[in-house]
């Protein structure tokens, strides 16, 4: 009896569920993006191309990708280490540390920017110490990476953490009894199982970093062709009544994110197939 009840409702409810899911994504994500795309191409392809190939636009895109790339390198290594540290080690205040991880998401991004300026700016003690050594952080590229690191901090940690928790310690022990060194165990046993999670975290951070505005605009200095990232360029184009210029760069950012996320999906599917 239980069975027949379940089967009868599956068709109906599954259809509604699918409808809800698709409708939800469509209405709140796809529709605005389609509207953006349609507007971008409304002025014609040549106009879009012309706007996109301005030196300022190209530079800002390149800078954004390079800064996001630098952030990813740090985030992947340090995020994985942090997750490892939180899962495998007992230490006082571990609960508090764990709660701190998500905090960057709750802070308005311009507050993040302000905080970084106050902490590392030329007037701060850290900032003046660094600039005495010839290192400019705020109003220079390192500041951008710092801001991106902060706003994307939780992604890698939170992607890796659950996988680490689920990891079968027996396999590691078996490997080391069979004579594998600690490094070998990490490389051959742990890393392969963590890799999909690390990639997920990296891809999410990357996408987030491409669009980050609030914190970066405070710390970057925003000099065109020196320290102006793509979202700040986009903002400028909108403010100076050139929506086409803004839309062109936005579409590139969007497609960039999409490609990264699709690639990630493919990689994961490939990985799963190999497992089977």
């Amino acid at each position, binding site marked *: 009896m239980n069975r027949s009840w379940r089967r009868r409702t599956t068709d109906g409810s599954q259809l509604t569920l699918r*409808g809800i899911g698709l409708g939800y994504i469509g209405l709140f994500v796809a529709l605005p993006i389609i509207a953006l795309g349609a507007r971008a191409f409304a002025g014609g392809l040549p106009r879009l191309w012309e706007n996109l190939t301005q030196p300022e636009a190209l530079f800002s895109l390149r800078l954004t990708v390079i800064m996001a790339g630098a952030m990813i390198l740090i985030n992947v290594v340090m995020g994985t280490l942090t997750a490892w540290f939180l899962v495998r080690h007992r230490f006082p205040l571990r609960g508090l540390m764990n709660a701190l991880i998500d905090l960057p998401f709750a802070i308005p991004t311009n507050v993040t920017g302000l905080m970084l300026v106050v902490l590392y700016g030329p*007037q701060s003690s850290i900032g003046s110490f660094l600039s005495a050594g010839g290192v400019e952080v705020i109003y220079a590229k390192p500041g951008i990476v710092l801001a991106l690191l902060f706003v994307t901090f939780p992604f890698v940690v939170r992607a890796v953490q659950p996988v680490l928790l689920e990891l079968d310690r027996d396999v590691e022990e078996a490997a080391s009894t069979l004579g594998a060194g600690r490094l070998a165990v990490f490389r051959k046993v742990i890393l392969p199982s963590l890799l999909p999670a690390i990639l997920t975290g990296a891809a999410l951070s990357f996408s987030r970093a491409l669009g980050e505005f609030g914190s970066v605009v405070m710390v970057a200095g*925003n000099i*065109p062709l020196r320290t102006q990232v793509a979202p700040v360029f986009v903002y400028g184009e909108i403010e100076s009544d050139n929506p086409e210029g803004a839309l062109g760069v936005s579409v590139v950012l969007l497609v960039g994110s999409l490609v990264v996320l699709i690639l990630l999906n493919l990689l994961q599917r490939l990985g799963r197939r190999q497992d089977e």
Partner: protein
Amino acid sequence: MKQPRRAGRSLFSGTGLFWAPLLALAIVGCGGKEEQRGAPATDKLVLGAYTVPKEAYEKEIIPAFQRLWFERTGRKVVFEQSYEASGAQARAVVEGFEADVVALSLEGDVDKITDAGLITHDWKDGPSRGIITRSVVVIGFRPGNPKNIRSWEDITGPDVDVLYPNPKTSGGAMWCVNAIYGAGLKMSEAATGRADSAQARELLMGVQRRVKVMDKSGRESVTTFERGIGDAIVTYENEALLRRLQGREFPFVVPEATILIENPAAMVDRNVEKHGVRELAGAFVEFLHSDEAQRAFARYGFRPVSPAVMLEFAEKYPTPPMVFDISYLGGWTSVREALYGPDGVWTKVTQELATEER
């Protein structure tokens, strides 16, 4: 009895769940509507202004007008005030923000609203041509003037870090770049009798080379400067005077050649018709030109347009010997293209500077 029950159930069924977020959005969207039910003897006026004169409006202009309107009609007037960057405010009005009166940083922003068909009367009609306040572009420096800054050339030196807002992100910031470029023209004209655009470009490049941070608005630029960054800031006289009014030290110099900033205000026909407040809005715009309002603006750091009030404040607002206005540069339409367009002077200068070693 059955009706409400069915409604209740449908909210939890599939489609109901689907519409729930929309419903939530609708509720959020309706939040402000309650306020409209005020006492019958109350009028409402929606003011869309740029951020800089906020203090003057809030503390003096609006209370004074409220008193005046009450004396004249026995009715109270409440203001719904919105302060945004000038360009953003103009865009908001074009996109449907129902401001009855707009007060913006530059004429071009009012033109955007006119071009969208929302302003149908000739708002430049009248002795001051729609302008309600003036200011000049000045150079701020650190207390004691350690870098000895007196003129535009003094902020092109290798040991001076300069701040000014990005003219791409803030319409108002264009005043700063216009001032530098125009000053170059004026000074060459004074020296040789001919305005030399090459010299003007040289001056602009010299200052831009020293620019360290370009914030997205004039106000933010001043905040960054006050945080201790930079040796000099190119900003508006009214911003500097406002800081002084707030009791802070803000030394600045009015360069001999600088631009006269002119800020317009206008009634938005489409919206006053819709709200039925043409008379009220007209009275408010007229009040902005009155000596009482002009004095209030003058106290808050703006140069009055009323000649009588300007005389009263002559000591506070000395006229720079080589002052010029936007028409000296050919008007806004031409400036937008000649300075900020794809081949504009400022655009090209920043491109050239990017290839220089720093």
